């Protein structure tokens, strides 16, 4: 073991970094950006979920509980009628609604209260603040003897038989495919550049659009086989619940694959080496992973981040996958139509961007 030779290797390594400013920037800037994002996401003044409140109590106590709920910091309540509740859950304007029944005051007298809680249920983490707020509102009636609190909870989608994997699974089935296809495309397109074959293709009668389309089809074939594998494993082995049409899931995945392939081609123009290509992962994938609603519902993010989330294609993809698998959405659902349209439009935009920039940096 020669300290001199070891030092030579260490020095050579650091000398390389001196010239690769981009890698340096990534090493020192990316962690701060990612941690800030995570910190803001979790601790930032997050938006309280919208909850409907129907106070049908004929007695006085319902009003007390309702006041307490209105003042809760965990949720943002609006008064609705119980009859409108399900429709509002479906259109996404509220994540839950609470009904204080007509005999609520009597229930308190009997020491056994059962408010109804209707949860939308497709997003993990949205239920907790609602139940928490309701629990706290019970303090307003705490002085009235020993009361047993047993809310009647039901779910529009999902439900108690759903676990965390069911929620994450729906999103991850799409994310895994998107992520892997992106990485494979960006690296192999970069190879096409560095091994000189792209220059040959450019000097052939091939048109740029043909190259991009050919790539897209090739990777789509591979990725769709992968998508089938992922889907079969998720549904048959992990037993992730699915209420939707398997072909719709597949269709959404195909659109995500097209977007991922073209994102890879487009971003390969901005990388000089495979090393730099891999650096796009923290830049492109991590923020989308945090902000697309996979981990935290977009509606609970701080307002500023919601604007960002709403322009990320993965947000729509994740939402679409959950719509299909958790809610059993079909093509007649406007929300699924929007999700599919946005992911498709993003794919088309990237095809155009990839084609337009293909000629750049040939040598």
């Amino acid at each position, binding site marked *: 073991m020669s300290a001199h030779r070891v030092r030579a290797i260490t020095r050579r390594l650091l000398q390389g970094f001196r010239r690769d400013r981009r890698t340096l920037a990534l090493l020192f800037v990316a962690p701060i950006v990612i941690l800030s994002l995570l910190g803001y996401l979790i601790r930032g003044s997050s938006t309280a979920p919208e909850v409907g409140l129907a106070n049908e109590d004929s007695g006085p106590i319902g009003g007390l509980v309702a006041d307490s709920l209105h003042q809760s910091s965990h949720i943002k309540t609006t008064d609705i009628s119980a009859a409108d509740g399900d429709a509002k859950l479906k259109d996404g304007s509220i994540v839950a609604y609470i009904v204080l029944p007509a005999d609520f005051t009597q229930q308190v007298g009997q020491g056994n209260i059962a408010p109804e809680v209707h949860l939308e249920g497709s997003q993990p983490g949205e239920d907790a603040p609602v139940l928490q707020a309701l629990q706290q509102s019970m303090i307003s009636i705490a002085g009235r003897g020993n009361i047993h609190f047993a809310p009647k909870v039901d779910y529009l989608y999902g439900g108690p038989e759903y676990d965390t994997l069911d929620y994450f699974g729906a999103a991850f089935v799409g994310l895994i495919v998107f992520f892997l296809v992106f990485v494979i495309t960006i690296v192999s397109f970069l190879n096409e550049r560095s*091994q*000189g*074959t792209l*220059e*040959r*293709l*450019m*000097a*052939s*009668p*091939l*048109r740029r659009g043909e190259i991009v389309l050919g790539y897209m089809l090739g990777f789509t074939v591979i990725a769709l086989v992968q998508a089938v594998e992922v889907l079969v494993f998720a549904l048959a082995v992990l037993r992730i619940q699915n209420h939707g049409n398997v072909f719709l899931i597949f269709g959404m995945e195909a659109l995500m694959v097209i977007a991922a392939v073209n994102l890879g081609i487009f971003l390969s123009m901005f990388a000089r080496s495979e090393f730099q290509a891999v650096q796009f992962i923290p830049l492109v994938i991590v923020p989308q992973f945090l902000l697309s609603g996979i981990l935290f519902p977009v509606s609970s993010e701080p307002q500023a981040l919601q604007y960002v989330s709403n322009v990320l294609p993965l947000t729509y993809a994740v939402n679409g996958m959950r719509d299909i698998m958790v809610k059993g959405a079909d093509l007649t659902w406007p929300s699924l139509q929007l999700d599919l349209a946005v992911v498709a439009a993003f794919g088309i935009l990237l095809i155009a961007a990839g084609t337009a920039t293909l000629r750049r940096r*040939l040598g």
Partner: protein
Amino acid sequence: MSESFAVEIDGVSKSFGAFKALNGVSVRVRQGEIYGLLGPNGAGKTTLIRLVCGLLEAHAGAVTVLGQRMPNVGVLRHIGYMTQQAALYPAISVEENVRFFAAINGAEEGVKEALELVQLWERRGSVVATLSGGMRQRCSLACALVHRPELLLLDEPTVGIDPQLRVQFWEYFRRLAAGGTTLIVSSHVMDEADRCQRLGLIQYGRLLAEGTPAEIRAQGGSQNLEAAFLALAGRTES
């Protein structure tokens, strides 16, 4: 005397930022001749070849190939281009590489003939990554000529290959030219220059001299091509 030119390069200039890669170069290549583009590394040979196949666009002057002003996608079908590095797909076989380049030119019937010409038909099933440098170079040549182009652009095709293979390559080139193909071959190896019908000497982006090897010798005042080249290069520098 009316002559038919496969390539006409007329007063072409090309810069990359502040660097002037080509400065007012004019070259005419006759149909069916082997034209040697000679000059040291960085002289502008590759830039000139890229202009001919439309990969780059000239800032000034005009490039006409097979009667069409470049860049022109329609002409590309009739051009074969062998890049400096053996640009191949390493993960697939020799035949799959050649078949791919044949397919994008719409000429799949030429695969066997191309592989036989470069004597790789027996090795057609070998994966390119496992081949020696010389075999890769031959495979690269097969990819460039599989669609029987009228004009073959060869950018330093003999760099890094042994003398025996070099002789073989020139034998292929002669056969192609005899069949009517026009070849532009760039090189910085002077002993290859004698095998060309005409030469263009390039240095610092300028055409120093042009003519048959005998004419170049006469212009440089030496029986040795290398000495003649150095004499011509020295004359323009002073």
